[in-house]
């Protein structure tokens, strides 16, 4: 079942006459699965995600029940994550948040500003996933969720991603140094074009070949 369809010729950008990315072919994304959004810095990965959730002036409006975690996102600094969860998550989502925080080894009782950079990152990641559970989101978009996290934590985060891909469509924008589980497909942004590339991507090397290759038409 297709959840998102991006028609061929869709131009994405902040101004109508100055698109940053174009979809030259029709892109269809299923209702469940994990997709990696890859591209070099400044190529428009964040812009594409904002387009999907309707946060660009030219986009149609918010998608129905999507959770988008921006790259820079902080919880209220004087609130411990546990209190944040109590304020805006339902019972089920709160339980999940506390469980995920445990997997990621986050101290949920400390005020947010007292947490280290990595711990903050882990907290907001667990929080965003819990919000997706709270409002039964169909899509979870995570912008650079693993930046600043060490290898062991990245590994734990992949446990959560793999669980979520069974429930909803997960799109991760990242520079994956280490891929724990191959994604269902890649969304590649290159030279102002976005394409869906399918194949077996088991390592960063496989993805790098797609990014540095001459052609994007490497579908298998």
């Amino acid at each position, binding site marked *: 079942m297709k959840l998102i369809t991006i028609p061929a010729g869709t131009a994405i950008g902040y101004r109508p006459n100055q698109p940053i990315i174009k979809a030259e072919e029709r892109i269809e994304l299923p209702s469940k699965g994990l997709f990696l959004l890859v591209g070099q810095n400044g190529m428009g990965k964040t812009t594409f995600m*904002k387009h999907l*959730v*309707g*946060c660009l002036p030219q986009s149609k409006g*918010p*998608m*129905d*029940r*999507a*959770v*988008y*975690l*921006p790259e*820079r*996102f*902080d*919880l*209220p600094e*004087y*609130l411990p994550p546990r*209190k*944040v969860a109590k*304020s*805006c998550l339902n019972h089920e989502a709160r339980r999940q948040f506390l469980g995920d925080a445990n997997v990621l080894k986050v101290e949920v009782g400390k*005020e947010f500003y007292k947490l280290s950079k990595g711990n903050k990152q882990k907290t907001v990641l667990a929080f*965003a996933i819990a*919000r997706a559970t709270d*409002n039964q*989101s169909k899509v979870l*978009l995570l912008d650079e969720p693993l930046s600043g996290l060490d290898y062991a934590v990245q590994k734990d985060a992949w446990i959560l991603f793999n669980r979520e891909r069974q429930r909803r469509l997960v799109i991760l924008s990242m520079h994956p140094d280490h891929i724990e589980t191959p994604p269902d497909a890649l969304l590649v942004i290159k030279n102002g074009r976005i394409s869906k590339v399918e194949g077996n991507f088991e390592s960063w090397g496989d993805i790098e070949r797609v990014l540095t290759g001459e052609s994007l038409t490497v579908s298998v």
Partner: protein
Amino acid sequence: MKAVANLLLQQWIHARAWVLVAAVFVAATFLAKYFVPWEVDPTLIPLARCQVIYGLTLVIGMVLLPALYAEAGRSQLTRNHRLFWRAQGLSDSKYFVAVCGICFVAAAAVVLAGTVILLLVRSVDLSVASLIQSMILTYLAVIVCAPLAVGMTQWVNSSPATLLTIVFNCVGLFGPASVNAARNTAGAKGEQVFWETVFTVIPQLRLGDQSERITFCWPPIPMQGFVEACGYLIGWTLFSFCIGYVCWRKRL
């Protein structure tokens, strides 16, 4: 919307600015008697306390609250909360209402101050009706700028937004008296029209300053006048809401 409002409220409680405010209130209540010759007439002490508590409520409402409104508005943008919640389907208007809902915190402060004065008021001649009217008008005056401050922070940093809001409040509090004096002394026709226009246009937030009523234990305002004053301040709040919302909506 409920989640955003809830989160903001929790944030305020945990930021503990209210502890400082409460400490100032308590200290002022005990120190108020030193502003009057209480050794000569001890009956002046309760009235002095009422005045100090009311005066502090007004000052905090006009100076500290804009800073809190601005901080709340700014953090929504800089921490990317707007993107986060909007993606989940929270519309701009609902989000703006949720953030502006923090002015109910001001209501809590005013109600608390009113209750303390009410406890003290038994030994002075101020009527309860007069006190309630004063507190309602004060509350309406201090929330006028809230939507404006929140909206402005989407374009400027929280410091200039706070400053502009405080200036707006000061103009509303002290401006009408100065403009009125200029209006009365204006000679030429053009000058008269100018001052008349300025007097009509500037926000008359002085309606919220009822310190004289508290000080001199004046009787309640006649109902029609009170309703008109409330209507005027609510009108300004709605105007501020519209301007604030336009600023809010134009920026994401």
